[in-house]
């Protein structure tokens, strides 16, 4: 018989100790420990904080418990809760957790409880590869995909018939490569590279229609399916617009510094090539204007609402998917409105008024007006609710950014190349 070994709890220095995935009901449906097991009772501190915060968004991302620190993120109605024991940059953990969620999204198309539960083995394998002893190991999706194949229906059928597996037979070369983001030996019959330039306008417009602040958040998403080792160069008509950028690691930073040209060997598949930020110091075009009046009357317990939207700076393009969301004060019971265009819905429980307009017709401006019925005996809300605008403009980057050309070196075939521009409203808010 061996002597009784006492498991001494020692101060253990590592980054991420354990991960718990918790659904919105507060059930822990996945746990993974990279070191000694930590009891899930540690999550009780988190649940306590979750209770306190009314919204899941308001749960503090970092919590302190007597022996551990809990760092959590909220993604797709799930909490990813990591347990750490010692000093570690919180952003390090947060960024990693988001990367985990991104990877799930990439593998399974969404990041939800059902999908994680259905693919629990792959999830576990992924987590095992992504973190070694609490320190990130392989977080590039191209590398991971080489080691652990994402599920697809055909393969799972074949696997069940033949007893094949999800794990790559070949050893992953990606981690050894000098370009870890690209897997080797990529082959396509149709070689194509698509780039989506998406710009979101974050703006605050005040009551009188003046812009309080406006910024543009741009992102270039790429879907590159090119064989071999292509070396791409993307140049812009007006690169000076981009003064604050962040890149995928594949972009050669110095080339950008000196020539304002994006030069990179792309990862295979979908990735975010670049994000950029055009700050409020610059002039930002606001595509629509909103004329609104919302008033609540002291007597009669009712209110009036009148919203009109018109085009402002649309650069000659059509504004589509226009939508106005208003978070009404608690006292508003119902809305009796007429919309000149589109439909409106008022959800009594969430107090959310949604007006789905669709295309903006500059000749006949959409208008929504009518009365609001209020709860009687309750004092009028003193603040008018602010309007959140959603919109989309195809074929336009509102900042004026344009890709001038895309060249490929390193391979001989002629790829199909495409660039698409979309402008959307980001956090576009009109104060009333």
């Amino acid at each position, binding site marked *: 018989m*061996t002597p009784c070994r006492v498991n001494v709890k020692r101060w253990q220095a590592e980054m991420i100790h354990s991960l718990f995935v918790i659904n919105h009901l507060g059930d822990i449906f996945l746990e993974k420990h990279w070191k000694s097991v930590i009891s899930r009772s540690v999550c009780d501190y988190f649940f306590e904080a979750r209770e306190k915060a009314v919204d899941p968004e308001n749960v503090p991302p970092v919590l302190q418990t007597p022996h551990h620190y809990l760092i959590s993120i909220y993604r797709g109605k799930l909490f990813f809760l990591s347990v750490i024991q010692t000093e570690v940059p919180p952003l390090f953990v947060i960024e990693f957790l988001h990367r985990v969620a991104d990877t799930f999204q990439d593998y399974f198309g969404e990041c939800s409880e059902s999908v994680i539960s259905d693919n629990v083995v792959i999830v576990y394998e992924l987590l095992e590869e992504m973190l070694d002893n609490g320190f990130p190991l392989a977080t590039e999706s191209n590398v991971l995909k080489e080691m652990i194949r994402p599920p697809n229906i055909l393969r799972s059928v074949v696997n069940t018939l033949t007893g094949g597996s999800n794990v790559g037979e070949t050893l992953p070369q990606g981690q050894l490569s*000098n370009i870890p983001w690209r897997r080797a030996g990529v082959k396509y019959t149709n070689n194509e590279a698509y780039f989506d330039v998406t710009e979101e306008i974050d703006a605050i417009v005040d009551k009188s229609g003046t812009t309080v602040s406006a910024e543009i958040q741009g992102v270039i998403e790429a879907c590159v399916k090119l064989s071999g080792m292509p070396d791409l160069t993307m140049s812009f008509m007006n690169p000076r617009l981009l003064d604050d950028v962040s890149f995928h690691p594949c972009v050669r930073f110095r080339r950008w510094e000196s020539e304002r040209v994006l030069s990179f060997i792309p990862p295979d598949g979908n990735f975010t090539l670049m994000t950029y930020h055009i700050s409020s110091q610059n002039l930002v075009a606001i595509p629509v204007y909103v004329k609104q009046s919302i008033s609540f009357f002291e007597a009669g317990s009712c209110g009036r609402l009148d919203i009109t939207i018109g085009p402002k700076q649309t650069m000659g393009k059509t504004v589509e998917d226009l939508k106005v969301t208003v978070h009404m004060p608690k006292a508003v019971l119902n809305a009796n409105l007429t919309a000149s265009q589109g439909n409106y819905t008022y959800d009594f429980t969430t107090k959310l008024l949604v007006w789905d307009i669709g295309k903006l017709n500059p000749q006949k401006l959409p208008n929504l007006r009518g009365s609001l019925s209020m709860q009687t005996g309750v004092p009028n809300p*003193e603040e008018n609710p602010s309007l959140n605008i959603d919109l989309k403009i195809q074929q336009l980057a509102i900042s004026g950014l344009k890709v001038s050309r895309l060249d490929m070196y390193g391979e001989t075939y002629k790829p199909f190349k495409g660039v698409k521009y979309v402008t959307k409203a980001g956090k576009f808010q009109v104060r009333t």
Partner: protein
Amino acid sequence: MTAMQKLLQLPVNAVNMVKTVQSQVQGQEEDKSPVLTPDSGQQAWYSALQPDELRHLRSGGTGGGGGGDQEERAPLEEGGGGGGGGFQTQPLRHDDLKEMLDSNKDSLKLEAMKRIVAMIARGKNASDLFPAVVKNVACKNIEVKKLVYVYLVRYAEEQQDLALLSISTFQRGLKDPNQLIRASALRVLSSIRVTIIVPIMMLAIKEAASDMSPYVRKTAAHAIPKLYSLDPEQKDQLIEVIEKLLADKTTLVAGSVVMAFEEVCPERIDLIHKNYRKLCNLLIDVEEWGQVVIINMLTRYARTQFLNPNINESLLEEGGSGDKTFYGSDEDEDEDEEEKEKKAEAAAMAKRKPYVMDPDHRLLLRNTKPLLQSRNAAVVMAVAQLYFHLAPKAEVGVIAKALVRLLRSHSEVQYVVLQNVATMSIKRRGMFEPYLKSFYIRSTDPTQIKVLKLEVLTNLANETNISTILREFQTYIKSMDKDFVAATIQAIGRCATNISEVRDTCLNGLVQLLSNRDELVVAESVVVIKKLLQMQPEKHSDIIKHMAKLTDNIQVPMARASILWLIGEYCEHVPKIAPDVLRKMAKSFTNEEDIVKLQIINLAAKLYLTNSKQTKLLTQYVLNLAKYDQNYDIRDRARFIRQLIVPTEKSGALSKYAKKLFLALKPAPVLESPFKDRDHFQLGSLSHLLNAKAGGYQELPDWPEAAPDPSVRNVEVFTLLERVTTLTSVPEWTKCSSREKRKEKKVEKPFYTDSEGESGPTESADSESDSASGSESSSGSEESGSGSESEESKEASESEEEEEEEEEEQKKKKKKDLKKPVQESESEQSSEEEERKHQRKSKPRKSESESESDEDEESESESSQSESEDSESEAEVKKKKKTAESKPPPKPLKKESKKEKKEMSLLDLDDFEPAPSPQVTPVNTFLSNSLVTDLEGLSLSDSVLSPATIAPSSALKSYELLHRITGEGLSVEYCFSRQPFSPDANMVAVQMQFTNSASSDTKNLHIEDVKLQSGMRVKEFPEIELLPAGETATAVMGIDFCDSTQAANFQLCTHTRKFFVSIQPPVGELMRPVFLTENEFKKEQGQLMGMNEITEKLTLDVKCRNEHAIVQRVTTAANLSRVPCGSDKECRFAGRTVTSGSLVLVTVATKEEGAAQLTVNCEKMVIGTMLVKDILQALTQ
């Protein structure tokens, strides 16, 4: 409960899993397989490091166990319920799993393992399957194997002895020829937390640390902290391994080993010295997670090794108090004398010895800066904190933009970033001020984000922006989120205390809030108003009165207490109301909250002391009530106060001082940010976020008083290059850039010899005069750093080289489309030479890259030399080595002499700046010009004036402004004098010549009714009072054309007539010459590519085929200066537009037979196009 159950349960409770399984298996064996003696079975467990025994185990132990389980568990199921819970009920279901694991089919095994892993994932206990699972550790199927590893790592700690069975498999794996298998074996082996194998692990790590494959070495680095946490005794040995791995030159290893260093021996900062420069240079190519760890470590390192770059600034702040107030609550206001003295001393020292940044310090700052562009928020934050803690004040600003960008990220990221911004914005407010609007709050933000943004806004508030901020606050106050409203009110209070100008405005605003319907808002306002009133109570007795009335309505205890305190404190301002309030309070005393009761007692005491006539009885009543209160604090207070204020025989001397005690002047509260002084924690750290020291937090050391010896970081050249890095270590892009370089060298060959001599000295001119050179040299040296590595990699593999050559060719093709990046040219040149040398002599690579870096250094300017990859001293070492190696000495000598020669010419250039473009700037320079304008104002006689103003230069073309006939005898001509217009540098000087050919005098010549495009401005010439008939007068006016060729329209007035005239500048006049060196020119040109570059082919006019003619024609057409150029085939010119200062670069490259190519680079595309047209015309006609 049966005895068996007890046997089974006990070990579980004792958390001794090993025992459990053993006894369990043993029990089974006793029970079911009497054939096997327990002894032999156990031996198998313990010494089962041989595969044979594994087989033995399979046949004996578990095979029997599997069958035995069912019968054994049956009673357990019945009795189960309590105690062991899951452990007892599950095993029944596990039988099928065990069977599957024992089968021969991989698919069954896989299925079983998948189910087991799913159990683990859900947190269910699967530990009893350990024996069945561990046998499959050597399974051929990769997925099964992987899942077995997952299982093993999870349960090995609990079943140490069984886990030992798997060790031999991993030991074999460690010897595998495939690096990935070696790595994965080491990874799992080190993850099994079994103390017995510590020696095995140690051995494996040591071996792996000198593995050929960098990936295996990386895994070894990962294994170090695992072993350390398992057995801290190994620390010394592990440090040796860390030391070895720190010397590794590959990017793959760097991040992991620094992580190991941080976890095992963060205090051994001395291990970093030799690797410091390497780490800095590799940093950009390390994977993102490693970057974070390295940057954080280097921040700490730098704090111990370098001097405070802001030491002079703190002196300034200390000295000039005006400066200090400007920066608001900047630093150490409440510093005690002693510290001040110390600081002053340090400052005095600094004064004596001006601060010079250690080149290594600069290296760190420079190499981390590009990482602000990382997509990884943690990396950006790491760089931001590094700059905040290490950079000179003037340079910290660069991080603001990147941090503001992060605000668009996930809300958790926002939360952390805002916390850090809040801390930073206290110390460095100016940094975030331009981004004020990015912190504006949306109603959709989560409350915690709102509150943090509010904090930042408050920190950023100053005299200039307070009005906008307050307007924002007004919107926030109406929010539905009441917590947020409360925070806003607090924020207003803080703004009001910090900025005295708006104190009254804020106070009024808050008073208005007192009539708010929401009680929370009112209560919060009361609390804040109380604090504000304390600053100047005498002015605001009406507000106090107003608040006194509120006691009837407000129910929030804190607010009630605040009001009562106010009334008591300032009862002399409201002598009539105060007693009445006390009366009301006395009535409701018993129903009040404790905090209010205490204040009622206070109020009573104060009133008694000031106005005892009216309030004596009331006070006694209140005190009596308090005497019998349930709360002992209140009872105590009542007793205490009674003794103090009501003089009795017993009360001692204290009561005499009651007035002083109660009515002492109370200092106004300082409303401070909760983030003040948080920066003593390293920013971005968990400890900073929690504002408490987290376990394992490494304090950020204070700057040393005197810099430790910088030579410790010097690396002997051969150690640096000793290791042949494998090809994998070189990041693709560096290779590319070096490839580009090489290729470009070839392209540039003819040009090279000329430029080499020039590059050195001109650069050193930059360092003195041009701040832009910093960035240039930085990119140069960085490139060279990675360059040397890529050279090596080239050596390392032939095939790679071939590939490269291919790519080179492609690159060449590409070359045609893309202009070459000018910045790279210098290092290219040097490295090209390197290559040539290499080819010629086929010298050992060591000396090659040595001399490469050496060369780099020499080509850099003085300042950048010291900052570049290797420090001066290292360079010296190298130089010495070089001479020792008896390298051909003439080369450096030649260089040296060239340098000298060049420096002389540089002096020339500096002293006589306009020299290179003599046609452009005539000899009579600024002084005379400004003098002229001044004198004109005095209206001296024209004869004196005219020679001074009119530069008799053939190059200046005159234009007619007013014809003699339309001007009724007055004719006006103007020319662009190309002289700086001294009253306003952004204006183009236009010199006008008025000729009065009429018979009568013209009087009061002046300009009126100027009509301009927006943005344009005109500085009129002083009125010419008298222009006699037949005379000529000259005047100079300035026009700011805003870099456009729009005409300036105005009226020229005489005493009798008005003439509408307009001046339209040729585009060439919208610029002024600037002096650039060839290198600067190329660098600038490199940044003005694409749309900013216009190229036109042309055939030169017959008369214009020599250089001189070209130069003359171009400078006539445009106000540019010649840029020295090594080649006689090219003429280069440079200028800046007058208004915006945008660079205009013109290149005329001549070929045979008058063919030429004109290139204009200018940010202003319109100007560029027009200029091309003009110059084209000038050259072809």
